[in-house]
């Protein structure tokens, strides 16, 4: 995706591609067995060795970015992951690692963060997944009087909670949003697996029944939390957008090849303007999606103040484009795309889901307006 990638970045990307193709090729992506805890842990720890979870963490805390721009590094990996419909808590773990590095207590930084970076555990961000409204909705927090919190409520459609993982819960309190890191198997925490459109990811509902959280598991303070949540959203949006663009590019390439090979009415179907022009428009959408996602990653990772706006713009444009692309590619494939055996539907499911994760296009457009002060 990025023609300006550094040598170091290119080396990591190459080895990451080899890892994915060996460990989780298409046949494994399709195999529900992949969801077993053993595969999940092995995949995660091998990915961690490549540095997939260290990019947003400063060196002082055990992390390492390749290019000085950790968001860009992670976005390039995300792009490759998306094209291959990879599983695993890549986005969640990176977002939570980043958040702990920025605002976590010494204990979180000493105990949880190294485990995330090393792939010993993963993390999921339990935010409100509603299309309208605040990311904190669904869970209420009350102060326990000792700097800690008691959390109650539920978050639906939380992405990629893995066995033995951590949850970053964003909750509402009378003083505004608060955040805390909780073990997914802590007392009072219920994780109920959901069915989902996307077969290559897992979703769960998280129920919190008066879960007590110690002070050293709370992130940030009243003054800083809203900005931190915005930052997390920007990082999550950028990484999901990058995964999504990867999937778009892969699905588009598959469709393009089909349009060249498939014969109807005495011609390859790609010679008909009805197909050719849809593919031209779709390829424009892919190029614009790549361009805006790289711009968001560069800006956000450089701590330029424009980062959150750029991230929302990327997420909005990519989300709409992804669904258009999935629909157009399905139409080009015709009947064959309606069969379970064809990969088309895996991408349709993935792209549509990407568009809705961490805020859909309409949510990010409204967020952009708010960030812009109107």
């Amino acid at each position: 995706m990025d023609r300006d990638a550094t040598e170091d970045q290119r080396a990591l990307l190459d080895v990451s591609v080899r890892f994915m193709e060996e460990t989780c090729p298409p046949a494994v992506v399709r195999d529900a067995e992949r969801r077993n805890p053993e595969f999940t842990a092995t995949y995660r720890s091998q990915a961690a060795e490549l540095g997939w979870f260290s990019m947003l963490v400063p060196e002082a805390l055990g992390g390492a970015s390749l290019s000085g721009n950790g968001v860009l590094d992670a976005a390039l990996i995300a792009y490759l992951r998306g094209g291959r419909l990879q599983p695993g808590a890549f986005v969640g773990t990176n977002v939570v690692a980043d958040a702990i590095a920025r605002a976590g207590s010494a204990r979180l930084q000493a105990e949880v963060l190294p485990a995330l970076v090393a792939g010993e555990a993963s993390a999921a961000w339990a935010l409100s997944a509603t299309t309208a409204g605040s990311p904190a909705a669904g869970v209420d927090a009350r102060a326990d009087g000792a700097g800690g919190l008691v959390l109650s409520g539920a978050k639906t459609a939380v992405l990629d909670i893995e066995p033995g993982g951590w949850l970053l819960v964003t909750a509402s309190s009378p003083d505004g949003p608060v955040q805390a890191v909780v073990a997914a198997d802590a007392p009072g925490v219920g994780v109920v697996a959901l069915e989902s459109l996307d077969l290559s990811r897992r979703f769960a509902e998280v129920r919190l029944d008066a879960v007590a959280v110690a002070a050293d598991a709370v992130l940030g303070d009243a003054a800083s939390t809203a900005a931190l949540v915005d930052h997390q959203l920007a990082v999550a949006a950028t990484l999901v957008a990058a995964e999504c663009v990867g999937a778009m590019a892969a699905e588009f390439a598959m469709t393009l090849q089909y349009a060249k090979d498939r014969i109807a009415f005495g011609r390859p179907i790609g010679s008909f303007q009805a197909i050719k022009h849809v593919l031209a428009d779709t390829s424009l959408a892919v190029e614009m999606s790549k361009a805006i996602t790289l711009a968001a990653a560069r800006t956000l990772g450089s701590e330029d103040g424009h980062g959150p706006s750029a991230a929302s713009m990327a997420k909005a444009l990519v989300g709409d484009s992804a669904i258009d692309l999935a629909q157009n590619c399905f139409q080009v494939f015709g009947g064959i795309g309606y069969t379970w055996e064809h990969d088309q539907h895996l991408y349709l499911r993935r792209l549509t889901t990407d568009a809705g994760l961490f805020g859909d296009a309409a949510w990010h457009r409204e967020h952009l307006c708010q960030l812009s002060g109107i």
Partner: protein
Amino acid sequence: MNDTMIDVEDFRREAKAWIAANLKPRERVRAGRVVGEVTTHEQIDAARTLQRTLFEGGYAGISYPAQYGGRGLTQAHEQAFREEAAGYVTPDFGVVGVVTMGAIGRSIAEHASAEFCRVHIPAILRGDEMWCQFYSEPEAGSDLAGIRTRATRDGDRWVISGSKIWSSGAYLADWAMCLARTDWDVPKHRGLTWFAIPCDAKGVTIRQIRQINGGAEFCEEFLDEVEVTDDDVIGEINRGWAVTQTMLVYERGAGETATPTEPRALAPDLVALARRVGRLEDPAARQAIARAHINDYAQFHLGRRIADRLEHSRNPDHAVAAYSKLAAGVYTPLRARLGMEIGGPAALAWAVGDEAEGRPALDYLNGRRISIAAGTNEVQRNGIGERVLGLPREPSFDTNKAFNEVLRNARSWDGKVG
């Protein structure tokens, strides 16, 4: 209409009495089939029993010719029976029944020999024979006349080999009506012939296709030197395209078992969805709901307008039916997409096994069926452009050449002409 034909209202009264005496009232109105649900052999057996009751009462094949076991009446009589029987349990063969009685039986009655009709049509009307189509192929979808299954004459037999796909309900069928190419040295529409093949014939393999929605209503077939005789030919040899056109007309009408009613309530499914996810006050969700409903409403009135036009013109131009098909092909996926937008994350992930919650996603996966099956949106647009609007034709590279040559040329396409 012949002079001795029973008047529709008299027929209705007669049917009403018979229905009350012979059919069971329906327990409750069924909320429509769940898409992806698959008809079983047990359901087919139950339907056969019920169909035999209808047949014996004189209510199977109401508009089929009387000499083949039908009643020789009109579509209006069929409609009257349907209306009277609406509250009763009637035979439900699922899609294979629609194909058999709606399209295949009628095509046979119009094109097959009298002897063929005498054997098969009564069996169809009695429910003894379910039929499917061996029609589309992996390499011939929208380009229907481009099929490559080969039927070769060998003495007094025909030997058929090839593969077929998208045969609705073939795994439940007793017979297949199969299109094969019998002459490769003439243009593609001119070398096709239809054959009847028993589904259990030697060399026939039928496999259900798993669909993206999890269902498996469609099948694919492999024909490996299947042998049939001249008695199994339906219509004339090499004139199969005429049969095809008849079948397509019936197919279009076959699904429409009742006139839909004007959709007045604001998209009830989407309103319920928005309410469930707490977005009934959200302006964007409201816009999406209204958009979906307005499109439904416009499609209904478009359909009525086109039906009127077809019914009331002396030379009805069937090409205008492409408007309804294209509208469905454009607005069905759009509606499914609006559902996903309204549902938001709740439409992307839902409680395991909760059909209502999973419904928007299922509709979304099914959304493009109508954009693709029975002629893609692109094919409809070509048809409207050329046949309704009279726009100059797309250059064609396959209508005047021997089909063998078309295949050769297509493989080395370079866009050069002349």
